[in-house]
């Protein structure tokens, strides 16, 4: 497992220091605002791990971020910036809701079918971006941002037109047979919304690794990502690889949406704005250095902080805006990893000398 070791070594130290720096900046911000940072961080951690319910809900908040983080990271590995994960996530939700509400099937078909259809919705939505790039040279950033809005309003239209619960701004509930919650775990965690999506997400972390680093398809994807000219020279079909990469990326994103519907809410609302998991996924992928394990850890951090922010305002009276400052500074330091490396360099050098 040399590769795993490498992933840990190269991409762990900088994020950890970034997190610490982010927390310190956050503490300064809280201090300046007249709040006690220690109390605030204490209540943050209490909220995240304090009770079974909160632990469960934290996991619930982390799960979609794993999916969207993987989606962004996967495209990135192939040299594409998929900023349309948001839209693919919404398409995944819509696909799952359509199957979940309209069809009536035995549970062993209904659930899996809803998942597959939702994932395909996401994959095709992203594949469209890949196709436009490969065939028409349209920059994927532009087309995928545009498709985010298209997805949002298309989803709202589908819900309003075909699935509406009369008198409400949301769809009819998804049939019991398609739901993905884990009842015994929900009971165990004091009614926290636990669902199979979390396990699928972890499976996706493994699939991400295997697909990219163990298969020939992954070899092609990475070659195109690193150097499309050399890929052409080597006889790879660069254009079809771009479409495939976006398709896979969209599947990860779509799955995130699927489980929000089937595992958490059991319906789909008419949304005034996108849920934001897709954009947070960009930050998560960045935090995780576009490696599968990194994404998992990034999602845990990001989801934990987001969910824990409720505790900070509750326990220490810190407004959630301050928590956004903490998250923002963590992302800042990860993005500007040059600064972090510069800061830790003297310490690293010292450590090396001691070791020598």
């Amino acid at each position: 497992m040399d590769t795993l070791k490498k992933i840990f070594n190269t991409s762990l130290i900088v994020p950890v220091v970034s997190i610490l720096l982010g927390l310190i900046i956050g503490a300064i911000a809280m201090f300046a605002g007249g709040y006690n940072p220690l109390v605030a961080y204490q209540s943050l951690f209490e909220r995240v791990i304090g009770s079974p319910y909160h632990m469960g809900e934290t996991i619930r908040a982390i799960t979609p971020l794993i999916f969207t983080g993987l989606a962004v990271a996967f495209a990135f590995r192939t040299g594409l910036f998929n900023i349309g994960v948001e839209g693919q996530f919404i398409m995944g939700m819509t696909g799952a809701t359509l199957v979940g509400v309209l069809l009536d099937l035995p549970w062993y078909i209904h659930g899996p079918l809803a998942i597959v259809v939702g994932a395909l919705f996401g994959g095709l939505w992203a594949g469209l971006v890949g196709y436009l790039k490969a065939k028409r040279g349209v920059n994927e950033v532009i087309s995928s941002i545009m498709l985010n809005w298209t997805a949002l309003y298309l989803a709202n239209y589908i819900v309003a037109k075909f699935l509406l619960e009369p008198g409400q701004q949301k769809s009819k509930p998804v049939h019991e047979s398609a739901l993905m919650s884990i009842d015994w775990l929900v009971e165990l965690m004091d009614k926290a919304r636990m669902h199979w999506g979390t396990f699928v997400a972890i499976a996706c972390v493994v699939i991400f690794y295997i697909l990219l680093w163990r298969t020939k398809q992954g070899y092609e994807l990475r070659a195109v990502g690193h150097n499309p000219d050399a890929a052409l020279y080597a006889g790879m079909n660069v254009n079809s690889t771009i479409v495939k990469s976006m398709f896979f990326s969209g599947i990860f994103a779509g799955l995130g949406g699927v489980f929000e519907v089937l595992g958490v809410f059991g319906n789909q609302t008419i949304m005034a704005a996108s849920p934001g998991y897709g954009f947070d996924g960009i930050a998560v992928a960045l935090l995780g250095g576009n490696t599968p394990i990194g994404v998992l850890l990034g999602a845990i951090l990001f989801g934990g902080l987001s969910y824990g922010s409720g505790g900070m305002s509750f326990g220490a009276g810190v407004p959630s805006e301050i928590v956004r400052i903490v998250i923002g500074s963590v992302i800042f330091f990860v993005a500007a990893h040059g600064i972090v490396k510069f800061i830790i360099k003297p310490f690293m050098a010292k450590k090396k000398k001691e070791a020598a």
Partner: protein
Amino acid sequence: MNQSGAVVQLKGITKRFPGLVANDSINFELKKGEIHALLGENGAGKSTLMNILFGLYQPDEGEIWINGQKTVIDGASKAIDLGIGMVHQHFKLVQPFTVAENIVLGNEPKKGMTVDYKLANQKVKSISERYGLKVDPQMRIQDITVGMQQRVEILKTLYRGAEIVIFDEPTAVLTVQEIEELLTIIRNLAAEGKSIIIITHKLKEVMALSDTVTVIRRGKVISTVKTSETNERQLAELMVGRDVNFKVEKTKRQAGEVVLSVDNLRMKGDQSKMALDGTSFQVRAGEIFGIAGVDGNGQSELIYAITGMRKVQSGKVTLGGRDLTNATPRSVSTAGVGHIPEDRHKHGLVLDFSLSENMILNTYFKPEYGKSGFIDYKAMDELADKLVKEYDVRTSGIHTHARALSGGNQQKAIIAREINKDPDLIIAVQPTRGLDIGAIEFVHKRLVDARNEGKAVLLVSFELDELYALSDRIAVMYEGKLVGEVDADERNDEQLGLLMAGNTGSADNGGRE
């Protein structure tokens, strides 16, 4: 000024990088008005030493004396203040800016709050005239040739008042004609009293240009000699550390059957001109067919057309009787073509892949490297191990990124991969560009070996020495077609030069095939 007249003295310079000593207590002295060549193989430590002099690195040990004063050069701006200028191998120019804008950048003549472009143009013009560096100050960098861009780099240093000019591998990117012009420019600079250091591994230029040579090998100064008291062979030996064969041993050999046949290829170029305008030739088994010509006469396009990387509008490519016109790169490769590409970084390697991964770049899909869609990393590593040994690729391991290898070793890796495919036809484009003598010798030997084994070799090169050393037949390419063939046994640069310039009239024995 001290009594020896030295403008630069480096005393006992040592620079260590993790895992290697790049410079090992180096002593170096540059006299006023001299042209001093710093000769050594790739990775010998020449560039490191000059980067120290230019303030980009700090030495771990040693002293720098400029004009008899001990100094610490802690940055490029300090070096510029001291009158040191550097012309880098990879130019540092702003493409959409004009020549004058690039030259004055960072030191612009001002008129109130704005840049005085008129004065800038004038200043540039007067410097360029004084040193005989012809440039048009108002042209944009993106519109001028590489040779012209290099002159802009030289002017940049002169504009900043450089008295000591360092040239880092200045001829690597130039055509034959441009090299001649550059050598004249450098001589002019020295005649004007500038002191010149030229980093190079090309012996010809050292002999033609320099007054003094310092040879560096593995971070150490091997010798400093007067150019007039040495010769190419001796320098090569000093540089490589052993006797070097300039001439590849090559016996006469009867060529076999036609392997590659190219018939009347036509391909549209980037502008309205045809890049290929009716190119025809044949390459036989057991021969090396060389294509000479000035860069940009359709050589790259010809190779793209044969290897399937770009489509042709008309014409025909056949390999051993099989029609490969506009075939995909993969089908060309599997039909038996090995391709050593012109640009090893752009096409030849995925630099962020490991050496091992690069070894299967165009064979990864084959069942021997994994069945049912998975890559067999063991088979891949075994192949890499084998090729690294066989082709003497120097690397810290097969899992090292290709980026970390020196240019020569990258090229060896590509050649290993392509020859190992056991192709019928080997296409080698500029196979020794940027390589040092030892590596060139190796590459040449491998190509001749392949020929002796009965493979057809198509060689495209801008280096006449290389073409004459290797080829059995040499044809000249001009404006998209082959304009004549010359005798490969009897060297005639003049005839070749005329053909390369498109002058077919006087080449009386240069009939087309």
